[in-house]
């Protein structure tokens, strides 16, 4: 070492070498801890149909697939009779159930840890081709997910990372995927106790709404202290035009999630190309 006039420079620039073999072993430990941590997070949380429908981040497709199984259980518990609802709401359920293809937009504001995150999703559903969700962040597409019954596959594309993930979907899970989204929310909202909100004009359309405040609906990966969901339908067509939810809970600190689902286009024709992932050639396959 040289005399110490440049001692600060020496300290800054002193290099260290590491054993590649140990590097790899340590990294494996770390990734394993990460995986366990994520599994633990998933295991301690309650399955949430609302979360699946309204907040599918799809950054971890494998976990998402597992959650869908939980959704199947939830459907068997909550679904079924819609006795007690008015004829109008029964028509809404029937219309949405019979819709072969539709699109909608979801916007979400999440306040957590002193930060506010906003995201937007554009969703496409077809009983024939499957389900596609494009997640936007700051106006740019970040993650696209495709549930493709014909290929029995769940594909996630993470654009900022130039990476994608692919998971095989069993028949049972495909059936569940056909049931999620606004179709199921409508069924869910009308099958629990709700309050009639009367009529109002939304974007020039006369709408009638209901409000539900059952925290079990808003259950997510943290304890929920309050949940409010509102469903507004076009009086003339009996199709939903607006879905709103507000979830407040505690996730190592207060958390608040507001979701607005609108811009519905019901029972339209969607081209098969919409459900073609078109993964760019330079994207790499992510390991699970």
């Amino acid at each position, binding site marked *: *070492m040289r005399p110490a006039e440049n001692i600060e420079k020496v300290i800054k620039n002193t290099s260290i070498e590491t054993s590649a073999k140990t590097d790899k072993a340590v990294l494996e430990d770390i990734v394993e801890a990460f995986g366990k941590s994520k599994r633990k997070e998933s295991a301690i949380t309650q399955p949430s149909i609302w979360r699946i429908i309204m907040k599918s981040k799809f950054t971890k497709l494998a976990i998402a697939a597992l959650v869908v199984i939980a959704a199947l259980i939830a459907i068997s518990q909550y679904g079924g009779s819609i006795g007690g609802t008015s004829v109008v709401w029964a028509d809404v359920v029937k219309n949405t159930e019979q819709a072969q293809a539709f699109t909608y937009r979801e916007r979400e504001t999440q306040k957590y840890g002193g930060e506010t995150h906003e995201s937007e999703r554009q969703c496409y559903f077809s009983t024939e081709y499957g389900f596609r969700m494009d997640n936007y962040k700051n106006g740019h597409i970040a993650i696209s997910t495709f549930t493709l019954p014909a290929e029995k596959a769940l594909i996630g594309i993470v654009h900022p990372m130039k990476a994608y993930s692919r998971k095989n979907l069993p028949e049972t899970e495909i059936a569940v995927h056909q049931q999620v989204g606004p179709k199921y929310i409508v069924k869910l909202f009308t099958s629990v106790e709700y309050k009639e909100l009367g009529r109002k004009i939304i974007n020039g359309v006369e709408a009638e709404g209901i409000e539900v405040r059952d925290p079990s609906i808003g259950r997510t990966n943290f304890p929920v202290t309050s949940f409010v969901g509102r469903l507004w339908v076009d009086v003339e067509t009996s199709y939903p035009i607006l879905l709103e939810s507000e979830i407040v809970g505690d996730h190592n600190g207060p958390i608040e999630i507001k979701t607005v689902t609108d811009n519905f286009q019901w029972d339209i024709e969607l081209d098969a190309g919409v459900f073609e992932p078109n993964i760019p050639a330079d994207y790499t396959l992510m390991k699970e």
Partner: protein
Amino acid sequence: MIEDKLLIWKFKRGSSDALCRIYEKYKDNLLRLASALLNDTAATEDIVHDCFVNFAQSSQRLKTSGNLKSYLAASVANRARNWSRARKRREATGLDEVEPIVSSSKRPEQWIIYNEQLKQLNNALEQLSYEQREVIILHLQGGIRFRAIAKLQGVSINTVQSRYRYGLNKLRSILDSEVRL
């Protein structure tokens, strides 16, 4: 910095690739930092390993704001200080023999491969007080500002700057005398 923000964003959303990139990007720096603070190979490796494992488990708690490099450096510094205090207690009670300054034999599983410059610098740094050493290393290798170090050490910024100045002077003198020898 922008890359770090993106890495944290991806990491918080479950990306193992982002975690691997963070590891590759900062492991050397953290090993160097811990090694300079502790001058103990096994403890350095354990602390950096634990720091990364803990980091991997903290994705949900991690905030996207803040400096990732400083965050990791402070995490290592806190662990190193605890380890150092525990060593002093062990020495004071005579429970353990004092461990060698730097392991001269490379164990098969050893992570760090020491070069002469690093050994010499670490041995010189060890002759400073722990507080002086911590200020110098956190500032120069960890890239942490004096104000943040003051908060970490629970002292005033003036004290931190004094520790830095006196520590560097002493280090110069130690290294100069070694060169003369």
